[in-house]
């Protein structure tokens, strides 16, 4: 079996098996019902309310809910920006890192609050432990919880009749944090430690290396520097950060190389587990949805639509990455002698993982809005790299980030239901809620923001010399780098074609803006739809009602997802990865 296939199959089985109980558990949590953890965490929840002066029974209109969300996020951005700028004055900075620069601090603050974790810095060379834990990891939690809160409000709106309110943001946020994320991360962090992920407050250790004379090791660098006799190994509280990075679909790594770094991802099993955990909540939420709307079939349909796109994408990515880059093979053969072994595309991959499961990781991390990487996406084959980019460009909906994936998918459902509803001769309705001009306006607004932001910013970048300077791989791949960056930012993914000079002021600011737009400008229409749907009656279903479950609707939803995105990005992709692929086959290089 090709590399990674067996693992991927096991992965899918584990995801589906675990997503259901987790989803049903979350449904109980969000509906305020008792769970097996209530005895333990109930007091924590109540303490949080008391200390924050929150009345958990208060109900919010969609406007209040949105204001609370935006207000809370603004506090987060301000706090994180201040913290990074003042890092040199704060404790827990054994490496004595200086203050983080304003562009990077802005980009990072926005990026972490928006659950993007686009990293324009190297973690182990920039961030103090204080910044990592109090600043970044905290936002990993809170941004994930905010995303889930929004989808919970949306689902609640679908189930309410003629109601002005959609729930309480503080409660949704707190419950998600305490009942879902905290316990899950505690367990995962310890399992990761068992695999070798460090959890220590020691900054680094100096190792006396075995081969002090190692100049260019294994011929890695053409011109070797005088490697010292010592290797400084950066350590830190990695495991606690790593766990929420996956569960919260955040993706912001402790180290620059992210989950490719052996301390973030030491073993093949930790790798598999990280993929599993970053997929888990997004794939569990459809079950939560089905349980909360009282019709499991509705959740299953959405899950099926997500799975179809996900599995197909993973299949393509694994296929393309399991084949070596023909140009690399040719370059090896050029010098005469034996040909190159066939291990798949190994540039930018780790031996312990291999290319197959690395492609699966890339698929999972971009199908969710995680953005963690265990390999260099920039070095993927053109079509292997197209898959992650495309998964972001379909709006992070299969399954998407925690919360954001499901609500994005539900917006697509609104569009799908609208057109299909017309086709069966009824004013379209979803779960008994009529889809009318207001919902369409907001849904279309939502769908417009992403492609417009990505395309306009990308096309600006290719015209600005300061932006073009950031391209590290010339030719069509350079266009792919830029497209990838803005697709990733706007969709709050955070992964990158890492060669791009993301630290340049242009990208730090432009991607920061893309992240803000992609997160908050998109949450507001979602909440507006929720508010409007909550006010409506629920039309009872009949055989004249379009069934929003079953293979036909699932297929239609998949088609709508693909068509909406494919039509917007196909031309740009043709000039990027598709052209590059065809040129690569023809032996061209840049």
């Amino acid at each position: 079996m090709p590399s990674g296939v067996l693992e991927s199959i096991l992965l899918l089985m584990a995801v589906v098996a675990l997503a259901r109980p987790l989803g049903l558990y979350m449904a109980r949590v969000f509906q305020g019902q008792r769970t097996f953890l209530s005895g333990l965490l109930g007091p924590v929840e109540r303490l949080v309310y008391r200390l924050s002066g929150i009345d958990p029974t208060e109900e919010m209109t969609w406007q209040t809910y949105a204001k609370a969300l935006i207000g809370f996020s603004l506090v987060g951005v301000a706090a994180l920006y201040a913290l990074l700028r003042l890092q040199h004055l704060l404790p827990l900075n054994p490496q004595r890192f200086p203050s983080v620069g304003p562009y990077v601090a802005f980009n990072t603050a926005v990026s972490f609050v928006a659950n993007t974790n686009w990293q324009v810095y190297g973690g182990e060379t920039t961030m103090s432990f204080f910044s990592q834990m109090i600043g970044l990891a905290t936002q990993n939690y809170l941004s994930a919880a905010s995303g889930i809160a929004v989808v919970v409000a949306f689902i609640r709106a679908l189930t309410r009749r003629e109601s002005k309110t959609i729930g309480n943001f503080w409660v949704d946020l707190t419950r998600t944090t305490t009942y879902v994320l905290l316990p899950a991360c505690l367990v995962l962090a310890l399992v990761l430690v068992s695999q070798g992920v460090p959890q220590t407050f020691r900054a680094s250790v100096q190792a006396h290396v075995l081969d002090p004379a190692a100049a260019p090791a294994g011929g890695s660098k053409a011109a070797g520097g005088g490697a010292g006799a010592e290797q400084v190994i950066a350590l830190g509280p990695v495991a606690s950060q790593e766990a929420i990075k996956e569960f919260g679909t955040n993706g912001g790594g402790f180290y620059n190389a992210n989950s490719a770094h052996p301390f973030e991802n030491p073993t093949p099993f930790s790798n598999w587990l990280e993929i599993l955990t970053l997929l888990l909540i997004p794939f569990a939420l459809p079950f939560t949805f089905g349980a909360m709307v009282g019709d499991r079939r509705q959740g299953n349909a959405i899950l099926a639509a997500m799975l179809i796109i996900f599995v197909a994408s993973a299949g393509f990515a694994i296929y393309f990455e399991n084949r070596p880059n023909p140009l690399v093979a040719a370059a090896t053969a050029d010098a005469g002698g034996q040909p190159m072994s066939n291990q798949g595309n190994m540039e930018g991959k780790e031996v312990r993982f291999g290319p197959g499961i690395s492609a699966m990781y890339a698929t999972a991390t971009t199908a969710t809005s995680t953005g963690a990487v265990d390999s260099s996406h920039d070095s993927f084959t053109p079509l292997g790299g197209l898959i992650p980019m495309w998964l972001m460009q379909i709006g992070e909906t299969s399954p998407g980030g925690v919360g954001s994936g499901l609500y994005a998918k539900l917006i697509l459902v609104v569009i799908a239901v609208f057109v299909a509803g017309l086709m069966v001769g009824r004013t379209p309705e979803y779960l008994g809620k009529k889809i009318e001009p207001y919902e369409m306006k907001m849904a279309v607004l939502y769908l417009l923001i992403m492609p417009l932001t990505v395309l306009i910013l990308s096309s600006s970048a290719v015209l600005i010399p300061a932006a073009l300077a950031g391209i590290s791989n010339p030719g069509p791949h350079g266009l792919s780098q830029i497209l990838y960056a803005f697709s990733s930012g706007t969709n709050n993914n955070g992964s990158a074609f890492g060669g791009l000079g993301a630290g340049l002021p242009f990208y730090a600011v432009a991607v920061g803006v893309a992240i803000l737009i992609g997160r908050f400008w998109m949450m507001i229409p979602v909440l507006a739809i929720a508010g409007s749907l909550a006010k409506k009656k629920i039309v009872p279903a009949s055989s004249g009602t379009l069934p929003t479950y079953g293979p036909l609707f699932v297929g239609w939803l998949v088609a709508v997802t693909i068509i909406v995105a494919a039509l917007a990005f196909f031309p740009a992709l043709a000039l990027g990865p598709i052209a590059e692929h065809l040129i690569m086959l023809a032996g061209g290089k840049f």
Partner: protein
Amino acid sequence: MWKAMRLFLVLTVLVGVVYPAVVTVAAMAMPYRAQGSLIRQNGAVVGSELIGQSFANPKYFWSRPSATAPDPYNASASTPSNLGPTNKALTDAVSERARALREANPNATGPLPEDLLTASASGLDPHISPQAAMYQVPRVAAERSLPEATVRTLVDKYTEGRQWGIFGEPRVSVLKLNLALDSLGR
């Protein structure tokens, strides 16, 4: 806004202080892992079993190419090469590595192992593929004046299969293999 700030502070303490503290305390049950899986020899740390090292001496097995700066295998600044698939810099580097490998391993048989031609994702990859190790056996054996079979046996011994027979790819830890080689010579 006031509520937002208060809640923000409370949750920051919960997930930014209490949570990592709990994990750190619990991780003390696994001190070796929690401290970075460090390998000590005669009391001195020679490396981490998880972090690769650079080897240039022909009597050692060589690690994969690393793109870290300023030196390869800089364990304080992990990075991949990020070279695109159609980037000339990539193919040039591969050609150069292929040339160097052939030159250093004149007696090697079989195809050039791809992992020795391409840079890893972290720049700190501790492993090479078993075939990459086998490829280097004739050179290492010759340099150390050991029978090839002895070295090959050692490689076999240090070849890890898929984790639990399922996960990942077969691999050889370069540092552990070289440490074993050194102790063999002693």
